[in-house]
């Protein structure tokens, strides 16, 4: 079955002629048809696009001129990445009918690399949430336990890779939206450094935090994919002109001699003991591979969550102001004037969590409160970033749990604050703009995946991936597949 293969293995089959991109696309489309009714990862499936792109890739391989490591590889995209001519709904009623007139830079780069688009993936509305329960359309299921959430907001992207419904998928991470679902679904989820990947065409939630990254079956695949999507973009002034290394080649180094920090503040009361045990065991594995591990302190960790829930909503309240029924998306009819039209459209088009954050953010930015809330949050952000800078003076990478717990049951967390706590270990990295990856580090007795997070210095994804790869090679968690069919 081609759908079980990593990108590297699939690419080898394409090159030796034992499989074709079309065969892989058909295999994946068949699985989507059979299994997605259970998993519900896909918002939109695009078989026509996929088969057409696959046929072109077939021809390139036949001609002996494939485009590179991703040519012919079936992928899928979080429904927050703009795809020209293909609906991009962002999990929201307000964009239910929105068909972008342009491709996101990442989408364009993936097309140019020859990938085959299977479809668009479910998500929490405007990427606000940790379970996909905030999708205006449906909740995606965790392939390891269909009664549980896949995490979020990129829940569809994580579930699709876990269920072998795509070779790789793409999500966005603002406060943990790639790493947390990757942990819940047992695959590799990479959030690159803020500025590493162009955000052009990523429907903004919080502009100073949002970053696009891949979900893959292996760390090596993440390395291949990052190389393709990373780099400066004339359309995004925040995408940095930092050279993009050959991440795949950089994996080879191993961890012998690397200094790895274990943050004291990431092992807290109330966290799942099975998660703590698995992460501590992972640290032992790394030590066994020759890494020098030491405890580090990130003292402002506990304030990260509060700062994040001011900065994120503040930027969101601004970014989401454009959805007013005037230009695109939903417009409620029957209003007497434009103000009524806009407020009725927004009232009907946004879900509860989005409205909550718009109100929070509007308040945090309002005259008289700005300094006390938004301003204070920015100061905390600086302190959190400084924590990491200090730690990285002595260590090359930091290893920690991705989340305090494992995938929870659908409907279990009704209190938004309980939900927000899911991101307590991923948010500080986001605030500091640093790269982080989550990869499988074990399973609970109940069979649910546990995620290990590796955090690195700014633009040092190479080291992050190298540590993750060394751990992955020493373990076999990533080879396990959920029993679905």
């Amino acid at each position, binding site marked *: 079955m081609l759908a079980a293969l990593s990108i590297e293995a699939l690419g080898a089959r394409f090159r030796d002629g034992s499989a074709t991109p079309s065969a892989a696309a058909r295999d994946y489309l068949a699985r989507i048809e059979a299994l997605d009714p259970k998993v519900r990862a896909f918002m939109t499936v695009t078989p026509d696009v996929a088969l057409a792109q696959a046929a072109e890739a077939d021809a390139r391989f036949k001609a002996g001129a494939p485009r590179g490591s991703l040519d012919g590889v079936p992928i899928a995209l979080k429904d927050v*990445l703009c795809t020209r001519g293909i609906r991009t709904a962002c999990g929201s009623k307000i964009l239910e009918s929105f068909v*972008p007139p342009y491709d996101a830079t990442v989408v364009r780069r993936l097309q140019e690399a020859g990938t085959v688009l299977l479809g668009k993936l479910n998500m929490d509305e405007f990427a606000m949430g940790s379970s996909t329960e905030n999708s205006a359309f449906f909740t995606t299921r965790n392939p390891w336990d269909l009664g549980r959430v896949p995490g979020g907001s990129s829940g569809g992207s994580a579930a699709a890779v876990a269920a072998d419904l795509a070779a790789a998928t793409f999500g966005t991470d603002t406060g943990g939206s790639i790493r947390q679902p990757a942990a819940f679904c047992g695959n590799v989820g990479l959030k690159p450094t803020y500025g590493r990947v162009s955000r052009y065409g990523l429907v903004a939630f919080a502009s100073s935090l949002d970053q696009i990254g891949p979900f893959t079956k292996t760390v090596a695949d993440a390395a291949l994919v990052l190389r393709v999507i990373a780099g400066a973009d004339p359309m995004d002034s925040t995408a940095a002109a930092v050279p993009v290394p050959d991440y795949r080649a950089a994996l080879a180094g191993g961890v012998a001699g690397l200094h790895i920090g274990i943050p004291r503040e990431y092992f807290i009361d109330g966290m799942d003991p099975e998660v703590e045990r698995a992460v501590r065991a992972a640290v032992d594995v790394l030590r066994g591979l020759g890494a020098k591990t030491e405890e580090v302190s990130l003292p402002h960790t506990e304030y990260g969550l509060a700062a994040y829930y001011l900065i994120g909503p503040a930027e969101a309240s601004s970014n989401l102001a454009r959805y007013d029924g005037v230009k695109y998306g939903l417009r409620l009819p029957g209003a007497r004037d434009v103000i009524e039209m806009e407020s009725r459209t927004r009232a009907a088009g946004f879900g509860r969590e989005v409205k909550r954050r718009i109100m929070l953010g509007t308040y945090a930015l309002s005259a008289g409160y700005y300094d006390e809330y938004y301003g204070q949050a920015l100061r905390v952000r600086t302190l959190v970033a400084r924590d990491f800078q200090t730690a990285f003076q002595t260590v090359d990478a930091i290893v920690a749990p991705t989340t305090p717990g494992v995938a929870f049951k659908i409907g279990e967390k009704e209190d938004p604050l309980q939900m927000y706590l899911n991101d307590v270990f991923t948010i500080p990295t986001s605030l500091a703009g640093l790269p982080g990856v989550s990869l499988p580090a074990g399973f609970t007795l109940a069979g649910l995946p546990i995620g290990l997070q590796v955090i690195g210095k700014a633009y040092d994804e190479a080291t992050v991936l190298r540590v993750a790869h060394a751990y992955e090679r020493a373990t076999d968690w990533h080879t396990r597949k959920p029993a679905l069919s």
Partner: protein
Amino acid sequence: MSGPYETVIGLEVHAQLRTRTKMFCGCSTAFGAAPNTQTCPVCQGNPGSLPVINKRAIEFGIRTALALGCTVNLQNRFARKHYFYPDMPKNYQISQYEEPLAEHGTLEVAAGGAPRVIGIQRLHLEEDVGKLVHEGEFATARASHVDYNRAGVPLMEIVSKPDLRSPEEAGAYLRALRAIVVYLGVCDGNMEEGSLRCDANVSLRIAGSDVLGTKVEIKNLNSFRHVQHALEYEVKRQAQALDVGERLTQETRLWDPERGRTVATRSKEFAHDYRYFPEPDLPPLDLAATEVERLRGDLPELPAAKRVRFVQVYGLSPHEAELLGQGRGLADYFEAAARESGKPKAVANWVLNELLRELPGDDDAAVAACPITPSRLAGLLALIDDGTISGKIAKDVFEKMLRSGEDARAIVGREGLTQVADVDALAGVVDQVLAQHVKVVEDWRNGKKAALGFLVGQVMKATQGKANPAMVNQLLGEKLPKTSKLT
């Protein structure tokens, strides 16, 4: 409170920058295209789109800032200004707030009396909004449409300090500011088309007090005339209110040019908390001091300096210098013609009396398109100078040059306008005139000096104006009898 009051006015001027492309995307800024044909995902505020700063707009802003003597903030940044309005695609405007491009400038303004220095508080850049088009009247429109062609066009906002003391001075400030942006080539200065817009803050206080009174903002001032009239009206309105002890409310009023008064807006419409915060999609600007100095070195001569030079170098009056310097195009025109003809005074007279009758002197395009080029004007003056044509004939030739686009010599030659300067031919005409007007000659003899003028006129008439006036005078002097009385 009762008078006398001191008027306190501050102006906020928005100038559309003449960049080829918009502030944050590559769309054209050309005026007058079909609705929504000059738009893209960025200036339409599409989900996922991001702004990218137009470097040329920054350069234009810096040039203006330097011309106004501002301090350019090498570190400055954009911020988002929020309010909901359908002409604004993102429902926020990318502007500058706490860290503007430039601050602390001055502009010298003369409104009748001695020149005064007006403070410039700040200069910043932002993006323009789109345009609403209503089917029918605004209040009862069946439908309203939005044209985003203008959305994202670069705007430069220049805020004066509340240093202006009269509507005339406000008008003079606006004209001086307009002259500078037009001279720099950063704005076309067209108020009617909205390339230059002005809002005014006006308040009154007891003369001599240093406490500011309640401020009223006036919008919809889209011509120089409107600015002055609206301020005159508003000053009177506030004075009358204060005289009878009314408290003024801080509010925004719209100028209604048809009724000639300002009208209070529903204050709710303008009572905004803009919730400014730094634009996260754009890194802070970090300008190089060397680049700013390069731009300073490249500044053209500005209107004030040019006026002084015109007086000193060409011996013009300050008034003439001001009129000739009202536009860079006109000033260049004058200098080119003066250089070629070597007679700056005469050129100035012709430009001020004849050329400016035909075209607006502040319209560089009109000056550039004028069929009478500086060189042709110099050519016309040369014909007067060498006696080929008279000053009077020259005015007709000027008219013809305007219409036909020919040079003076061609017209004079074709139409036989050369002065009659043949002594024998003229002598015959003079004899004839003297013979026909014996009575007038008699008057002359009796000391009536005006008789000479009449006789000159008759000779000119007989030659259809082509006689050389100097020669006619000389011939008459020779042929007329000596006067008996010297008066």
